[in-house]
C-alpha cells in the first residue's frame, strides 16, 4: 500500500504585533486537527512593535524533523513580507499578498533593514526594475508561483460591516485572512479553519467572531478566484489528543513534573518564556496524586531577581535547604553566573542551569539562534570546575534531559548546564502522550540524609567523590566556597587541598560511569558510511532530515550526535571516528567549538565543517548542500546561509 505523503511548508510574515503570532498558532492547530505532525517557529527582531517577523511552519504526514525551505505558501499581506521572502518560495507555491501594497517600494519601507534594501535594489536592478511588491510578484510568477491578490481593504471592510467589531479585533484579522486564503488554496476545508480559530480564541467571543468572519470572507474570495480546491486528505494522526508545545514550554513542563520547587531567574531572551510558563503553573492542582502526603496543590517558588548573579545565587541557596532548584538564562546572563558556577563546584551544591543559546557575542542578536556558548558552558567558572553539560537535539530530548539534569545535579552535587537554544525555545511541535512520559525517568536525589547525623562531614572523602548531603537545618556544618576539610571548615592545608581537588574531579569518572553510553552520544544512520557528521544540540533534526535526502541521492552519511559534552564521552566518540573516512562537523558557530573539543579529547581532527553563522535555524537544505560541496570539492569549511 502506498501512502500519500503530504508535506507542506508555509511562511506567514508581518510586522511584529500585527497578528503573525495568532496566525501562526492557528496554522499549527489547523494541521494538527487535520491529522498531521507539525513543526513551527517564530523569527523576529529584537524590537517591540513594527519590525518584520514571521512564523514558519511545516506540516507532514511523517514526522517533520526540521523546517523546510523553500515553502509551499507565503502569506505576505504587507510589503515587507513579500520582499523579504521573495527567495524563500518554491515553484508552484501559493503567494498571498495585498493588492493595496502593490506599488510599495523597498526603499520606502521604514522598518526594513538597510542592507536588505540594498540587496533588493541590486537584485531587481539586474532585471531593470525597482524592488516593489508588484515586481516581486511578477518575479514569483515567472518562477512558477501561483499568486493570490487579496483586496485586503475591501475584505476587511466587509468584516467590519458584518460584525461591527471594533478596530482592535478587526485589524488583527488581517493575518487570519491571508492565512485562510492560503490554507483554502492548499485544500484545507473551511470547517477546519473554523475549529482552529475557535481553539485559539474560543474563550473570547469578541475576538472570535470577527476572526471567523474574516476567515470565511477570505475563503469565499479565494473560492471565487480559484474555484473549488482538491481537498487536502486527512493525515494519519487523527482521533487522539495531541500537544502543541514550544521548547521553552516543554522544558518548563519537565521541570515541573520532575519535581522542581524553586526557580529564580532574570528575564532574558530566549529563556524568559520558560520561566513564565513555570510561573503560570506554579500553583498546580494535582488532584489525588499527592493525597497520601496530604497535598492537593503543588507550589513552586518562582522569583524574578535583580540580576543573573542573584538568580543563580538564590537557586543555590534554595538547593542548600534540599529544594530542587534551577535557573534559566542565555549567554549574557550566563556570563554573570560564572562566579557562582565556581562556587557550586567548590561547595558541591546541586544546580541546574538551562542555557538557551542565542546569537552573540555580547548582546549580538538577542532574538536569533546560534551555538556559540558550548565552550563558554564547558569552561565556565574559574579554577578546576568539573560539571555536566548536556545538549538536547529536539523537544523530546529536551523534556527528558531537563528531568535527568535535575537528577544528575543532586546525585553528583554538581552544576548541570542544559544547553538549548533560541531555535528550540521558540519552535513548536506536536507531541503525543507517549513522547513525554515522565514515568520513564525515576527521581534520584542521590546520597541525601535527612535528620541529624553524628559527626556529620559534609565533604566526606569517598571513593566516588560524592559525599552524603544533608539539607540545612538538621546539623551544624559549614558549606564552603573556600577550600575546606571534610567538615567544610576552611583549610589551606596542602593535604586537605589535594584531597579535595581530587575528590571533586573523581566525580567526573563517577559521572562517566553512571550515565549510560546511549545517553552520552548517539550514532544515527549506517555505521559503515564513509562520511560521518558530528554535531550537538538542535541541529539534530535538520541533519537527520538531510541524511534522508542525501540517502535518496545515493550519498551515504552517518551522524554522531554528542549529547553529553562534559564529561566528554571520549572513548565512544573515538570509536566512531576511528571508522570514518571523512569527518564533517556541523555547528552554528565560527570557531568550531565542538571540533575543538573532539580534537582535544580524542586527537581526531574534524577535517571539514559546515557552519551556520547567519543566526537563523539550520535547514536540511543547508546540510545537503554543505555535505555535497565537501564531498565534491574537499573544501574544509562551508558556510551555509539559508533563512531570511
Amino acid at each position, binding site marked *: 500500500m502506498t501512502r500519500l505523503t503530504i508535506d507542506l511548508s508555509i511562511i506567514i510574515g*508581518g*510586522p*511584529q*504585533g*500585527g*497578528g*503573525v*503570532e*495568532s496566525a501562526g498558532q492557528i496554522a499549527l492547530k489547523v494541521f494538527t486537527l487535520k491529522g498531521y505532525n507539525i513543526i513551527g517557529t*517564530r523569527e*523576529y*527582531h*529584537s*524590537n*517591540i*512593535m*513594527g519590525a518584520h*517577523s514571521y512564523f514558519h511552519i511545516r506540516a507532514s504526514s511523517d514526522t517533520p524533523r526540521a523546517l523546510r525551505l523553500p515553502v509551499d505558501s507565503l502569506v505576505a499581506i*504587507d510589503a515587507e513580507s513579500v520582499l523579504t521572502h521573495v527567495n524563500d518560495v518554491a515553484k508552484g507555491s501559493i503567494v498571498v499578498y495585498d493588492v*493595496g501594497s502593490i506599488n510599495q517600494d523597498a526603499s*520606502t519601507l*521604514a*522598518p526594513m533593514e538597510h542592507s536588505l534594501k540594498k540587496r533588493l535594489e541590486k537584485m531587481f536592478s539586474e532585471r531593470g526594475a525597482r524592488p516593489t511588491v508588484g515586481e516581486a510578484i511578477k518575479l514569483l510568477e515567472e518562477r512558477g508561483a501561483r499568486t493570490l491578490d487579496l483586496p*485586503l*481593504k475591501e475584505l*476587511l*471592510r466587509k468584516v*467590519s*460591516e458584518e460584525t*461591527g*467589531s*471594533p*478596530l*482592535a*479585533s*478587526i*485589524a*488583527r484579522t*488581517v493575518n487570519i485572512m491571508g492565512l485562510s486564503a492560503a490554507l483554502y488554496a492548499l485544500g484545507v476545508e473551511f470547517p477546519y479553519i473554523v475549529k482552529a480559530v475557535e481553539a485559539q480564541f474560543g474563550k473570547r467571543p469578541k*475576538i472570535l467572531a470577527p476572526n471567523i468572519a474574516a476567515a470565511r470572507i477570505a475563503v469565499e474570495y479565494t473560492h471565487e478566484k480559484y474555484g473549488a480546491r482538491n481537498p487536502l486528505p486527512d493525515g494519519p494522526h487523527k482521533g487522539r489528543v495531541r500537544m502543541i508545545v514550544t521548547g521553552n514550554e516543554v522544558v518548563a513542563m519537565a521541570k515541573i513534573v520532575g519535581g522542581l520547587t524553586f526557580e529564580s531567574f532574570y*528575564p532574558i*531572551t*530566549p529563556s*524568559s*518564556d520558560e520561566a513564565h510558563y513555570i510561573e503560570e503553573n506554579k500553583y498546580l492542582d494535582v488532584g489525588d496524586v499527592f493525597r497520601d502526603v496530604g497535598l492537593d496543590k503543588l507550589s513552586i517558588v518562582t522569583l524574578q531577581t535583580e540580576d543573573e548573579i542573584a538568580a543563580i545565587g538564590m537557586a543555590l541557596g534554595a538547593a542548600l535547604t534540599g529544594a530542587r532548584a534551577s535557573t534559566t538564562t542565555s549567554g549574557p546572563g550566563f556570563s554573570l553566573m560564572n562566579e557562582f558556577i565556581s562556587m557550586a563546584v567548590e561547595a558541591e551544591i546541586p544546580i541546574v542551569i538551562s542555557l538557551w543559546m542565542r546569537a552573540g557575542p555580547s548582546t549580538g542578536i*538577542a*532574538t536569533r539562534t546560534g551555538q556559540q556558548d558550548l565552550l563558554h558552558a564547558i569552561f565556565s567558572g574559574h579554577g578546576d570546575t568539573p560539571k555536566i553539560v548536556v545538549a538536547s537535539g529536539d523537544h523530546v530530548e529536551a523534556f527528558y534531559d531537563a528531568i535527568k539534569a535535575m537528577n544528575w545535579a543532586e546525585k553528583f552535587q554538581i552544576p548541570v548546564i542544559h544547553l538549548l537554544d533560541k531555535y528550540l525555545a*521558540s519552535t513548536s511541535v506536536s507531541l503525543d502522550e507517549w513522547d513525554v512520559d515522565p514515568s520513564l525517568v525515576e527521581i534520584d536525589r542521590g546520597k541525601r540524609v535527612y535528620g541529624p547525623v553524628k559527626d556529620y562531614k559534609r565533604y566526606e572523602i569517598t571513593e566516588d567523590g560524592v559525599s552524603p548531603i544533608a539539607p540545612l537545618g538538621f546539623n551544624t556544618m559549614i558549606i564552603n566556597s573556600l577550600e575546606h576539610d571534610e567538615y567544610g571548615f576552611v583549610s589551606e592545608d596542602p593535604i586537605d587541598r589535594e584531597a579535595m581537588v581530587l575528590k571533586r574531579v573523581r566525580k567526573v569518572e563517577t559521572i562517566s560511569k553512571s550515565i549510560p553510553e546511549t545517553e552520552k552520544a548517539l550514532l544515527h544512520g549506517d555505521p559503515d558510511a564513509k562520511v560521518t557528521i558530528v554535531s550537538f544540540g538542535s541541529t539534530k533534526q535538520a541533519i537527520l532530515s538531510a541524511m534522508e535526502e542525501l540517502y535518496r541521492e545515493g550519498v551515504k552519511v552517518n551522524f554522531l550526535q554528542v549529547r553529553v559534552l562534559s564529561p566528554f564521552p571520549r572513548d565512544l566518540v573515538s570509536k566512531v571516528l576511528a571508522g570514518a573516512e571523512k569527518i564533517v562537523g556541523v555547528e552554528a558557530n565560527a570557531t568550531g567549538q565542538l571540533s575543538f573539543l573532539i580534537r582535544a579529547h580524542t586527537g581526531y581532527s574534524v577535517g571539514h565543517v559546515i557552519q551556520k553563522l547567519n543566526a537563523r535555524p539550520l535547514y536540511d537544505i543547508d546540510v545537503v548542500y554543505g555535505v555535497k560541496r565537501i564531498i565534491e570539492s574537499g573544501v574544509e569549511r562551508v558556510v551555509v546561509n539559508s533563512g531570511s
Partner: protein
Amino acid sequence: MQRVAEVFKSMMSLGKSSSCSSCWDWLPHIHFPFVGYCTLWGTTTFEDYYCSSYKLVSVERERFYWCATCKVRLNREEAVSHWIMKHRVFRGAYVDPDIREELYEG
C-alpha cells in the same frame, strides 16, 4: 451594533481629499494604516470614509504626531518636515489594546 450601523450610514466613500485619511480626528492603525479609529465617533473607519465633521489634519499645534509613512512618532518640527514631503502625518496611531499577545520577548 446599532450605533455602528448609523455611523456607516452617515458616511460615504468619497475621494481622498476630505476623507478620514486626512482627518484630524482619525488615528490610522499602527500596522495597517488603511483602517483606523475615529476618535469622534469612537469606531472603526476606513481611510476613504467621510463624514460631515471632517477636519483637516494640521501640524500647527505644539504636540507629538505620527507619520504613517515612516511609522514613527514625530515632534512638531519633524512633523512639519514630513508633512512637506507629503508623508501621511496624523495626530497619533491606533494600537490594539491586546497587542501584548502578539509580541515577543526581545
